[in-house]
């Protein structure tokens, strides 16, 4: 554990000395928190109108989420809010990529990887340390954003029904379970890419493709192909657990010290 802690401290000490990285990491949670609040603020003003969006405009499948005692305005609002749920899931995927993608390849470019690998640290300790260093800030950012979002909802006049839905099991599972699991997958994928390429920019570009499945989910929901509810979320979480376990083992297996040292030019 001491080695893992040391790697986490090292990564954070380096990352948080770089203002640009700190800005990049805090900009996204800020935007992703403010944007839904602004839209909800606007739409909360007239639940009957919703700026021209009616329940008839929503995919029929989504109506299953709306309960009988909800107004159509509230139902539309939940429909809109559910899209933001996926945006909240994007946060833990995108934020740590900046740190993780640079993690190995950055050490290659500064030639600090060789002395690091010459210490008694094991590959598992190194990978876990680097993963956690990237995952933890992303999870924290996601949770804090969600906290701010929840606190701000009554302030901007969102109805209690909508707030109860957001504070309900679908969102809580998404933010507190699915989000961290996705962050772990994202970071391990980024680390894997980072250990195979020679340029931090390439690592970041390749690692950012992870956002595609979430966008797919977003568009699938908009099109009414799926509706993100508790059941879908539980299946998603189960799948992510398997993906994460596979990614961690694959990452350790693929991290060949010798190749990384000798094939680097």
């Amino acid at each position, binding site marked *: 554990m001491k080695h893992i802690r040391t790697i986490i*401290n*090292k990564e954070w000490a380096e990352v948080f*000395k770089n203002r640009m990285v700190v800005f990049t990491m805090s900009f996204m949670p800020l935007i992703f928190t403010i944007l839904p609040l602004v839209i909800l603020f606007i739409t909360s003003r007239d639940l009957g109108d919703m700026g021209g969006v009616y329940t008839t405009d929503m995919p029929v499948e989504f109506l299953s989420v709306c309960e009988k005692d909800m107004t159509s305005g509230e139902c539309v609002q939940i429909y809109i809010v559910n899209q933001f749920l996926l945006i909240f899931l994007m946060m833990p995927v995108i934020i740590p990529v900046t740190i993780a993608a640079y993690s190995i390849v950055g050490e290659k470019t500064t030639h*600090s990887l060789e*002395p690091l690998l*010459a*210490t008694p640290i094991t590959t598992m300790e190194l990978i876990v340390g680097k993963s956690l260093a990237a995952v933890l800030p992303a999870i924290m950012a996601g949770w804090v954003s969600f906290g701010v979002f929840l606190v701000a909802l009554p302030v901007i006049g969102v109805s209690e029904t909508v707030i109860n839905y957001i504070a309900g099991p679908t969102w809580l599972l998404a933010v507190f379970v699915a989000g961290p699991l996705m962050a772990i997958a994202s970071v391990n994928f980024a680390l894997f890419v980072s250990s195979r390429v020679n340029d931090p920019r390439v690592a970041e570009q390749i690692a950012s493709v992870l956002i595609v499945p979430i966008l797919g989910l977003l568009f699938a929901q908009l099109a009414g192909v799926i509706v993100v509810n508790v059941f879908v979320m539980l299946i998603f979480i189960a799948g992510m657990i398997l993906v994460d376990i596979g990614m961690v083992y694959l990452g350790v297996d693929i991290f060949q010290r010798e190749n990384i040292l*000798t094939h680097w030019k």
Partner: protein
Amino acid sequence: MIETKSLTKIFQVKNSQDVVAVKDLTISVAEGEVFGFLGPNGAGKTTSVRMLTSLIAPTSGAALVNGFEVGKDDQKIRRSVGILTESPGLYERLSAWKNLEIYANLYDVEDVDRQLTKYLQMLNLWSRRYDPVGSFSKGMRQKLAVARALLHEPRVLFLDEPTSGLDPEAARLVREFIEILRGQGRTIFICTHNLDEADRLCDRIGIFKTRLITIDTPKNLRQKLYGRKVVFHLRALDQAWIDPIRALPRVSEVKSVGQRLVVSLDDPETLNPQIIRILVEQGADIQFVGEIRHSLEDVYLQTIKDSEDIGVKP
């Protein structure tokens, strides 16, 4: 302390022939010895160090470092040796203290503060300990990298080009520090291009180009290649004086160069007084006597050239 037997490393290159980086390296470095590993760029020196520090695995052969077997006790080897890599590889945004603290923790050093203080003071970096390493000169970075290699007090130290790219003053500081480490009885394995440095620091030298070409003390390497030569500076030279000297046992060659006699001989400590006596008896005025000392550079270049001439190939 370090023993290798037929240590070989072959890199497999996609769509190309395999590259033999190190072939049949067999050496033995004793405890407390400073061993110089000399060779041209691409000779396989760094690959050898990487194998001996368990950073990469040998293709074949065996090696024992500090009593641990390479490929089997890698973790133990990494814990028990110190390495100064070719590039310092420091974290530039972090302070000198933070850089060392990270490594002290990775090496499980017990009293981190004491060790950091000891080496930062020893290497004159104490006053800059909280400054980011990015603001350090090349010499300071190198010293910090040396400190990093020593935090866990390894008995075996691998130094890959320790003074490469340093100005003369910084290089001297690093060399002096290596002398201190030698005084502490540590085994030091130095890869270097700096032949003068190797000559001054090393007890023995291995000249290496994919395979070990020769290994000996600097003095013996010179002697093996050039023998020993003494030059007698005379006020005037009479060719008749040469024959009695040539007749002496263990004198292999006598040449006259201007007013000087150059004598190739085995044992100048015994023969010089006899030669001086002969010359004085024959009326020679001797102005100076000195041994011709070939530089290690001459030895190195000649050895590498000879190995190429006789077709030593990987």
